[in-house]
């Protein structure tokens, strides 16, 4: 039975300095909270109870609403009936996108299974909606958090003055868009974040969280927890969100390592919260005040960041390309090309028509514009369609847009189905995934978290997995798996 806890290990014991301290290898992860509602039920039903119904199969299997899966990810029911999925550690943006898509797949199966049971008591019209978005109708917001393993040389101050302006303006490409019943927003989240960099997530709503849980050698790395981003349906947006952020972080790490200027020194914003709202409301041409007293636009700021990244990549192409080696969805040149093309497309048309088959916010606006061309659309209907776009269980719009070429998919269903059971390659997710697979098949009691694997019965043993880049494991890991497999032959009767 997996009991979840952060083992609290900061890696002081037994952690070796990482072999990747001096290159640009990175660990990516995405945590997605899903919203839930029910329509068409014959009598009122509580979303919290329906969320519990979704997790009944998990409860039966592991006696908890929290577990790790054979693909290395974490699946759990968060406070307030939020089904949540955290991808396993991924080496590339494309791997993380596949892992995130696998999460959608798993959540959809849980929701549709619960819906079958729900219909037995609440009628055939009862429909579960599971929203991969970030806002409900009452002004509550929930997150899509990105995690990046970052080399410790990058100072927190630079995160605020150099990375944050990039994160705020990248939303002209990766914003998921939202119609609030009155007007369109470029992002889902901007209206709900009110601080820049903070260590709290519950009382305040920061854009970047600095709680320092690297889940790796803390001398070498910090974990950057980015909260400002939207939950994307577009695989292109998810991948580009991670990939462009990765390249900016590479540039900043290189600057810190060599004591060089990054070229991003002049993009600090006078008021990040104000800038974030301006991007949300006015898009690519919003007026942004910089700390140096000048004004700029999201387009111009993204051009400056891309320019600095391109100069850096020209110097260090092989090393940077190596950091994206094996990405199943995009190469370094794909990322740079799409980034540049995205910016230039918006420069030509700030409604984003040229990006409508890949940027969520632009896709929604094009669809809404075509609807409006047929006649007046009830704003409430538009708000409903905006939600339906994000409904991964019962929604129709996103799948239809994709089928008719109005949204582009980067990978097919077979690949996503593989990611449901297969961990991302080249990380300790491989070790965790194999541990879970072996433990679930054996009469043993077990638990694990991001950095620890533990066998609690019939014999006790545990192994720390402190290096996120280690997909091979040491002798202790091999012994742990052998113990589990050995339990299969003992006839031990352990209820799991």
């Amino acid at each position, binding site marked *: 039975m997996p009991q979840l806890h952060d083992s609290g290990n900061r890696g002081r014991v037994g952690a070796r300095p990482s072999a990747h301290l001096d290159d640009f290898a990175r660990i990516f992860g995405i945590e997605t909270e899903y919203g839930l509602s029910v329509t068409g039920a014959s009598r009122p039903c509580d979303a919290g109870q329906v969320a519990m119904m979704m997790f009944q199969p998990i409860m039966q299997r592991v006696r908890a609403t929290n577990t790790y899966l054979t693909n290395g990810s974490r699946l759990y029911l968060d406070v307030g009936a939020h089904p949540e999925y955290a991808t396993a550690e991924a080496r590339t943006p494309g791997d993380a996108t596949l892992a995130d898509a696998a999460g959608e797949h798993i959540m959809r199966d849980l929701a549709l299974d619960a819906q079958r049971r729900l219909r037995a008591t609440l009628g055939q019209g009862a429909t579960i909606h599971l929203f991969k978005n970030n806002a409900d*109708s009452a002004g509550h917001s929930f997150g899509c958090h990105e995690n990046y393993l970052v080399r410790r040389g990058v100072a927190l101050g630079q995160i605020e003055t150099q990375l944050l302006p990039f994160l705020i303006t990248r939303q002209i490409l990766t914003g998921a868009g939202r119609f609030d019943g009155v007007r369109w927003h470029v992002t889902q989240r901007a209206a709900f974040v009110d601080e820049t960099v903070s260590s709290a997530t519950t009382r305040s709503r920061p854009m970047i969280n600095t709680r320092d849980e690297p889940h790796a050698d803390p001398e070498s790395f910090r974990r950057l927890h980015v909260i400002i981003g939207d939950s994307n349906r577009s695989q292109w947006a998810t991948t580009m969100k991670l990939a462009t952020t990765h390249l900016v972080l590479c540039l900043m790490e290189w600057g810190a390592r060599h004591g060089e200027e990054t070229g991003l020194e002049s993009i600090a914003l006078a008021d990040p919260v104000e800038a974030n709202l301006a991007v949300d409301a006015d898009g690519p041409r919003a007026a942004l005040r910089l700390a140096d007293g000048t004004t700029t636009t999201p387009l111009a700021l993204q051009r400056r960041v891309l320019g600095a990244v391109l100069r850096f990549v020209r110097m260090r192409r092989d090393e940077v390309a190596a950091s994206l080696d094996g990405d199943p969805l995009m190469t370094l040149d794909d990322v740079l090309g799409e980034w540049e093309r995205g910016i230039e497309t918006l420069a030509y048309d700030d409604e984003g028509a040229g990006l409508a088959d890949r940027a969520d916010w632009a896709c929604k606006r094009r669809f809404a514009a*075509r609807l409006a061309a047929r006649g007046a659309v009830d704003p409430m209907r538009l708000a409903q369609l905006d939600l339906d776009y994000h409904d991964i269980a019962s929604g129709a719009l996103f799948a*239809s847009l994709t089928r008719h070429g109005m949204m582009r998919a980067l990978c097919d269903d077979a690949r996503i189905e593989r990611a449901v059971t297969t961990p991302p390659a080249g990380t300790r997710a491989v070790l965790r995934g194999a541990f879970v697979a072996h433990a679930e098949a054996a009469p043993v009691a077990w638990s694990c978290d991001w950095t620890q694997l533990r066998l609690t019965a019939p014999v006790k043993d545990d192994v720390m997995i402190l290096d996120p880049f280690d997909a091979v494991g040491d002798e202790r890991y091999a012994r742990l798996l052998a113990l589990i497999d050995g339990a299969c032959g003992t006839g031990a009767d352990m209820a799991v």
Partner: protein
Amino acid sequence: MPQEQHSQSMAHDEQHEDDAAIGAQTTHRTAADAAIDDLDAILDDIGMVLETNAEEYVSGFVQKGGQ
């Protein structure tokens, strides 16, 4: 090819003597027609959504907790 026929018929129109302009306009027209077909197909696909009460659907989504 419908596109070529369209070009030829347009070429007879004295208002449009510039071949390049005709070509461009024809392409634009064809793309717009395709877009309308797409929209019809999408509206078919989302018919069930459009039949439900939008206000109930939207106001029924109230999430607690999170983060």
